[in-house]
């Protein structure tokens, strides 16, 4: 009888401990995400027409990483969208981005700029 109660207590405590651990991890990732949002950066969403295969996405990622100030490129294949950000003083103009896309063999759709990260459509 005692062992059954003990076992139940262990299970309940484990569940509580696991919940706290998950919550802590979630809070940590929120803090981390918030720390990545910076007011002195510009966020750019580029619609790349014709981007439909994983290797095209890899090639495009490499090209966009060459833009000054870009350290990360997010590409959504389903929507053909690429997301980049740069420090404001290195903001690439529309013409230079269009040239990179067309030189890579694709066509350019909309290019949007804003000072906070874009909400990604596929999430």
């Amino acid at each position, binding site marked *: 009888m005692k062992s059954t109660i003990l076992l139940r207590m262990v299970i309940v405590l484990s569940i509580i401990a696991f919940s706290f651990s998950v919550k802590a991890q979630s809070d940590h990732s929120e803090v981390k995400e918030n720390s990545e949002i910076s007011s002195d950066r510009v966020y750019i969403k580029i619609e790349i027409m*014709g981007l439909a295969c994983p290797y095209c996405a890899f090639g495009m990622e490499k090209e966009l990483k060459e833009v000054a100030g870009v350290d990360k490129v997010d590409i959504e294949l389903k929507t053909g969208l690429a997301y980049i950000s740069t420090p404001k003083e290195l903001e690439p103009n529309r013409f230079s981005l269009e040239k990179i896309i067309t*030189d890579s063999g694709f066509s350019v759709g909309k290019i949007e700029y804003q000072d906070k990260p874009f909400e990604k459509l*596929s999430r």
Partner: protein
Amino acid sequence: MRVLDNVKFKQILAIIWILCAQVTWAQGPPITTDTPVMLGLAGNGIRTFGKFIIKEKVKVYVHPIGIPYNVTSKFQIGAIVPFKVIDPNDGATSKGFSDIIFFSKHQIYKKDGKAKTFRILVNYKHIFPTGNIKSIPRLGSGLHKNYLGFILGKVTSKIGIYGDFGYNLVEGPASDQFSYNFSVGIPLLPQQYPQKQINTFLEFNGNYVFKPEIHTLFISPGITFIPGRRVLFETGFQYPILQKNIIDNKTKFTILLGTRFLLN
């Protein structure tokens, strides 16, 4: 004329129907059909694979290494260097480099849309008779060949359809040839980037020789596995469904096993 028997034809139709009926997502490049000029592996990588051809009287192993280079986003050049081993059932084995192929692809039409593209290219190849013709069996054809054809590719986020066809002009008294390939690609995993991908392909590979009239057609199912950004593994199986006017030494089947990887 030897035609497909009814049962085999129904089996092939059933496979096509099953593959086409699935909800599909985009995929990587096909295995035995040529592809349009694209960024990524098609442009700055190396492709190599082993091809085991099992015939009635001989086993052939071909190991080509293909090196494409994108001069511009619309123009690609490259070379294919094949190493060949020919092992007759009742004779000595020949091995060495076979005929080297130089190729160029020029994009003449492109229509891009949201997560989809359709491209048409002109494809020119020159085959140099570099393979040894003094060996028995011969490793090379001993003939210059000029190939002129077209490549078509429609890639969307739901399906990939590829085709290529062209005329092979052979010097001397040897007959010209017409070759054609068709491929449908279907991924087995949801489409995201970057992520591991497994893609299935159903391809058809045909070749028609004018004089004497010889027509071969193979059905070629295959799988590609993409574990990361820079590398792809592929395997395929070719089974003959038509070998018109080939009486002696018919092909039983062919197995392909290969990889493609990026240099930079």
